[in-house]
């Protein structure tokens, strides 16, 4: 029996995993945003994290916390813990050695919550919800910069879902959740410049309402948003996107994430939706065998 995973029946409270930023900092450089010499302000980071935490609680979200670990500054980015599908948790295999120490912590957490924890095969790289987001029935997945296409195919087989690997071509948008965010089963925001022609064609073909984010707003990490019901929490500094979201019927809550953006993360990176993302078709559809 899974205590916290979605069961696909009655709607349950939205549940999100977060990790307090006690040990967060820029200690290495594994994406173009990170500069060790710039550093982040711990007090401001804590305040920004708290603001997100408060906002989520205010939306009725149940928050699970994982204990921060010294020497694992990026453990705060729980989106990269793994991928949730019903009562299955596919734990991440990080590409960069500096983050590989996070896996045992995320694995223990998932096991403690009753998930059926699965590891990707062999030396395949997979960085969890950072690179794999359901929108409707399909699992949209980013590859090349962090996750491997072959590993994504394996996940499709293992879960029995349709996986659509999209190549990420701009190193600034190294995870799929930095340039693509499903809003509901038929809607998503995306930054076209992060994909190639094939990826853009797939997104346009498969998602009925696709909102383009302009380069400036994408560069301020506005695609890295958290969706709870009809509310979107995103970084300040994306007024055009906020207006588009309002038009689509979403309420927006802009927040500051400057300290986390220095590390290449924003609202979405700081959260893992434990009961499945709002846009995941399987949350409302009939249960299929795993």
């Amino acid at each position, binding site marked *: 029996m899974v205590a916290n995973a979605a069961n696909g029946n009655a709607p349950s409270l939205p549940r999100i995993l977060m990790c307090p930023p006690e040990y967060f900092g820029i200690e290495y450089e594994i994406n173009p945003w990170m500069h060790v010499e710039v550093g982040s302000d711990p007090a401001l980071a804590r305040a920004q994290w708290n603001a997100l935490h408060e906002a989520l609680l205010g939306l009725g979200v149940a928050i699970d916390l994982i204990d921060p670990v010294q020497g694992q500054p990026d453990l705060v980015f729980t989106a990269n813990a793994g991928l949730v599908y019903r009562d299955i948790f596919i734990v991440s295999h990080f590409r960069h050695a500096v983050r590989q120490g996070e896996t045992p912590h995320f694995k223990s957490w998932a096991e403690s919550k009753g998930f059926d924890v699965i590891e990707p095969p062999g030396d395949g790289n997979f960085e969890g919800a950072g690179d794999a987001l359901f929108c409707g029935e399909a699992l949209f997945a980013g*590859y090349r910069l962090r996750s491997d296409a072959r590993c994504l195919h394996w996940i499709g087989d293992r879960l029995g879902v349709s996986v659509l690997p999209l190549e990420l071509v701009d190193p600034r948008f190294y995870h799929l959740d930095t340039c693509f965010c499903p809003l509901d089963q038929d809607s998503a925001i995306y930054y076209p410049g992060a994909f190639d022609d094939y990826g853009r064609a*797939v997104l346009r073909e*498969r998602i009925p309402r696709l909102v383009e984010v302009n380069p400036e707003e994408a560069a301020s990490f506005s695609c890295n948003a958290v969706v709870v019901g009809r509310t979107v929490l995103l970084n300040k500094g994306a007024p055009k996107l906020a207006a588009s979201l309002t038009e689509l019927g979403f309420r927006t809550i802009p927040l500051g994430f400057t300290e986390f953006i220095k590390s290449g993360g924003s609202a979405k990176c700081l959260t893992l939706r434990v009961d499945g993302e709002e846009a995941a078709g399987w949350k409302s559809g009939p249960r299929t065998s795993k």
Partner: protein
Amino acid sequence: MTHSNNGGASVATRPPSTNAEGVVEEVEVRGHIVDSLLLPKILDRILMLGGSFEILDCKIGSRRVDPSYARIAVHASDEAGLAEILGDLIEHGASPVHTVDARVVAADIAGAFPEDFYSTTNEQTQLRWNGHWIDVHDQEMDCGITVDPVSGHARCIPMTHVRLGMPIVIGYAGVRVLPTERPRETSLFGFMGSSVSSEKPKAVSLRGVAEAIRSTVASGKKVLLVGGPAIVHTGSAEHAARLIREGWIQTLFAGNALATHDIEQAFYGTSLGVSLDLGESTEHGHEHHLRTINRIRRLGGIARAVESGALKSGIMFEAVRKGIDVVLAGSIRDDGPLPEVITDTLVAQDRMRKAIQDVDFALMIATTLHSIATGNLLPARVKVVCVDINPATVTKLSDRGTFQTVGLVTDVEPFLRALAEELGNRT
């Protein structure tokens, strides 16, 4: 024994645009490769990086959640180009089909392969060795493969040649077959395939054969004639002799009978005692072939008979005079035999193996036994035309694995007469 059955080894085919010097590697990709456009993207990437491809297998999932599968032969002009393409495709989720070297074990006894040896076909074969594909030399069906671990040279080897400790390839892993591409041009080999019929237009077929012989000779390769005694019995020896004299035949395989009756004709004007001018049996004619063999044996062989002036005409005379490569292989019912006839079949096979090295075209006329024996040794790239009045001869040849055979069901004499005329007129 069979052939063109490739067992469990994988098969790659060359696309027409790739020259034979190129390199090839198979990759496979599995997943939602159609919906995600990964398959078209992979194919586009191959072309963009200067390669070419052939889809060897493709299975499309019937429901949206079903994965699809494609196996693709990737061709490039050289190893470096191929490595670049493969490195790129791996990023897009494709993986090489062959990731292991061929396995070899030391022969545990002489004269036999280890159990599970890789049994060869007559198609061009390659081994994965130290991560690279290497050609198997001396391609021949129904052999094993040995690899020199130092030089990395691989070749087909008959089981009788296996020595104790010789490294022999076992299993199918790391072995692949590159089937001979069917010609697309509208030549004899293009439109006839290997079907056998007596209803085909003879003049067209004949011009096709003549053209194939002419182009083989022009390219510096050899034409092999495999002949049975019916060439002589039907009065065609002079046509065959002319083909040799005029330089269209570089290699001759036959048995004791063809040589004996050819020389009998030169000595007595008969073949098996029948006058080739009158078509009637001659008195004591049945003794002619034995007297012929006896005389040649007394002279010390066919070559000596030519040198001494005793033998002045016929196929064997022209062959000796022209200095073409002749292999006469014996059989258990041979009279004599003539001194040049090799009576040890294994020795004869080895002589034939050496003699076919540069052969590109084989004309097999009126002999089942020698045609099949030769067909067993020829790699599939060698074009074979089998001429016989009996369709079963051609069928047998194809059924025993020489599938590249084009069969012409016709009487030998008019065929050889017309062929010699066709080639003679256009020298």
